[in-house]
């Protein structure tokens, strides 16, 4: 084994011995155990630590990692970082309500999303500098993230233990904004905005939230400080950070950010921005989701559970064969919906159309649908008709897109049949490629 290969092991031993012994001495010992006595590396390391009065268990201490070194497959991980954002979330685990926290860690190398699964013994807040031990990392949408489970520990550090992140703000089109980004520079027009009062750890706070757009796309924002914002304004924001909810990136900024209201005639009006910016499904997948996205695609499958369905009056779940999964035999309430696969040739997503949109497509209402199903004594006639109407038809679909482990889901707020002048487009394309 050469010096370079031994180096990480010497480091391990050093750490276990708390640097009481010089690296040269350790190296010498290690060479002796290896070359003279042919002891395996693991045994040699144990023996050396013991010999110098250390605890071999300490060999398993994790090397500390900087955020940009985290790959997303670490089973055990120590980091020192600053909490850039943190928020609690109610989830249901094995039928029990549970509070978890999620947010963003930052150090001098970058940022990373984290989830804190055990909240009881920890009292941390935004701005704290922490030392997390024995966390683990995984990836979500190809992005690494840190998980702090029951085996992990968190300690509060002095602020100066983690150097600040200093880099020029990153200029970013709205469509390219991803979870975990920070120190962004974004220019966009405010489409909608409302003021809310929210409860935080430090009491009541005003929150200004809405939708910001540029020509590339739209994004939800939350301003934690009163910047005197109003709809239609064009703002230039420096120092925003991003977190996601179910894959939808949300832009956050606060008193540490700079917001400048600018006079930008170039950027189209709010109405125009509202209706532009179609996105490919591949782009949505890489981004993880989007608010009020517009997708041009074709329905290539209508799933079971579409058409005329019955819902449990207790929990709203779809009833199968007269029985709810949770509440057993119930008298289901009729509803209409579409659960279909939308595919644009770049990617696929699950699209949900609620009752009103489904009625629009069918051209009749729920009562008529019930009547038709009764006449034919077949609940599936409505699904069959939806297949006939929707499959292989070009659609322009609009709605919020979220993601989970099954992929992307779009809950449609609007569905239109798209008229395409094939002849004109074919001529245009031919002209383009004949040059």
């Amino acid at each position, binding site marked *: 084994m050469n010096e370079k290969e031994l180096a990480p092991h010497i480091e391990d031993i050093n750490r276990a011995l708390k640097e009481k012994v010089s690296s040269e001495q350790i190296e010498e010992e290690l060479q002796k155990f290896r070359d003279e006595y042919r002891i395996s590396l693991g045994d040699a390391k144990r023996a050396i630590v013991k010999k110098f009065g250390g605890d071999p268990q300490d060999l398993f201490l994790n090397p500390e990692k900087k955020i940009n070194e985290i790959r997303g497959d670490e089973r055990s991980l120590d980091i020192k970082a600053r909490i850039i954002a943190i928020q609690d979330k109610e989830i249901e685990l094995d039928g029990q309500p549970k509070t978890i926290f999620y947010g963003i860690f930052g150090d001098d190398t970058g940022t990373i999303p984290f989830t804190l699964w055990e909240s009881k013994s920890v009292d941390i807040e935004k701005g704290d500098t922490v030392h997390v031990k024995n966390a683990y990392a*995984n*990836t*979500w*949408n*190809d992005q690494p993230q840190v998980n702090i489970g029951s085996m992990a520990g968190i300690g509060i550090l002095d602020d100066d233990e983690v150097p600040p992140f200093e880099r020029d703000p990153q200029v970013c089109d709205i469509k390219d904004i991803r979870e975990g980004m920070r120190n962004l520079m974004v220019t966009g027009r405010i489409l909608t905005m409302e003021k809310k009062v929210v409860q935080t750890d430090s009491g009541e706070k005003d929150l200004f939230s809405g939708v910001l757009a540029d020509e590339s796309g739209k994004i939800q924002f939350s301003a934690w400080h009163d910047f005197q914002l109003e709809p239609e304004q064009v703002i230039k924001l420096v120092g925003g950070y991003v977190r996601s909810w179910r894959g939808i990136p949300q832009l956050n900024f606060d008193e540490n950010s700079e917001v400048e209201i600018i006079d930008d005639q170039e950027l189209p009006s709010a109405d125009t921005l509202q209706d532009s910016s179609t996105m490919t*499904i*591949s782009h949505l*997948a*890489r981004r993880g989701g989007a608010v009020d996205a517009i997708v041009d695609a*074709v329905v*290539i*499958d209508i799933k079971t559970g579409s058409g005329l369905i019955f819902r449990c009056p207790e929990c709203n779940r779809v009833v199968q064969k007269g029985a709810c999964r949770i509440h057993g035999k119930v008298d289901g309430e009729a509803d209409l919906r579409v659960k279909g*696969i939308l*595919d644009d*040739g*770049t*990617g*696929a*997503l*699950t699209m949900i159309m609620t009752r009103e949109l489904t009625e629009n497509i069918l051209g009749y209402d729920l009562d008529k649908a019930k009547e038709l199903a009764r006449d034919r004594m077949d609940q599936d006639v409505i699904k069959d008709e939806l*297949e006939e109407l929707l*499959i*292989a*038809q*070009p659609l322009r679909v609009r709605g919020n897109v979220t*993601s989970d*482990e*099954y*992929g992307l889901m779009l809950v449609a707020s609007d569905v239109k049949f798209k008229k*395409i002048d*094939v*002849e004109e*487009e*074919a*001529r245009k*394309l*031919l002209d383009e*490629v*004949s040059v």
Partner: protein
Amino acid sequence: MSMMKREVAWRIFADELNNSTLETRGEDERAPTYIVSPLGAKVNRVYAVGVLTEVDNRGTPEEPLWQGRVSDPTGTFFISAGRYQPEAATSLSNIDPPKFVAVVGKTSTYRPDDETVLISIRAELVKEVNDEQRDLWILEAAKSLKTRLEAMAEASRMEDVSVQELIDLGYDPTLADGIKAASEHYQTYPLDRYWSIMKDALRYVLPEYEEPTVMDTADEGLDEELMERVLEVVQELEEETEEVGVSYEQVRDIVVEREDITMTEFEELVSKLRLHGKLMEPALGQIQSAY
């Protein structure tokens, strides 16, 4: 934890799909297999719209296996649906060709010998559509082909094809992957051929389009003679094996060797013979002389 992603349905012309000879599989055990086309489309699922020209039950009445041929302006998709695709099988059995159909399905390959890969589509969905939907699909397939042609052209200019460089140029990561795999496997960049296929397909949807007639090519006399040669080989082999229907590859290899023509020229001869009703393809990869 990576996402359980639904595979995208590629809009790909029959010619490009059928000329694919590379199959890849992800490292994960459950990872799907892909067919990588000569232009780097990494295909697991296909969405095709064309004319259903034939349907046959190649199974038994109890356990049917429906096979069909769907034509687009560039060639033929071979589709099938059996017991594991009940909905598509029912649709296929109920359609009386010729009809415009939309097909969604997964690609499947069959290798009769080391060099040949025959590609068919196990249909998940078959739906009757109209000519407008067909034209729209041709437009989509042409756009998709154009993107691959442009990406391939970029790759052909790189000393070492780099996935990251392609992504930086704005191409989808999946396509960038496919382009790299294709450039390594096929070792050629068939750009001219596919540019002309794309343009021909687009012209097909224009009202002034006229079907090129089978007989109006200048070297028709030569073709006539070659077509006769192909038929002779088929009949020779049929007599030799005493079977109706012989291997497409076997015929191809003999004719290509004897007459010193290219595989593409051979394919054209066979399709002309089929148009003239002198040859039939009773099953994927088989040809038979029509007595």
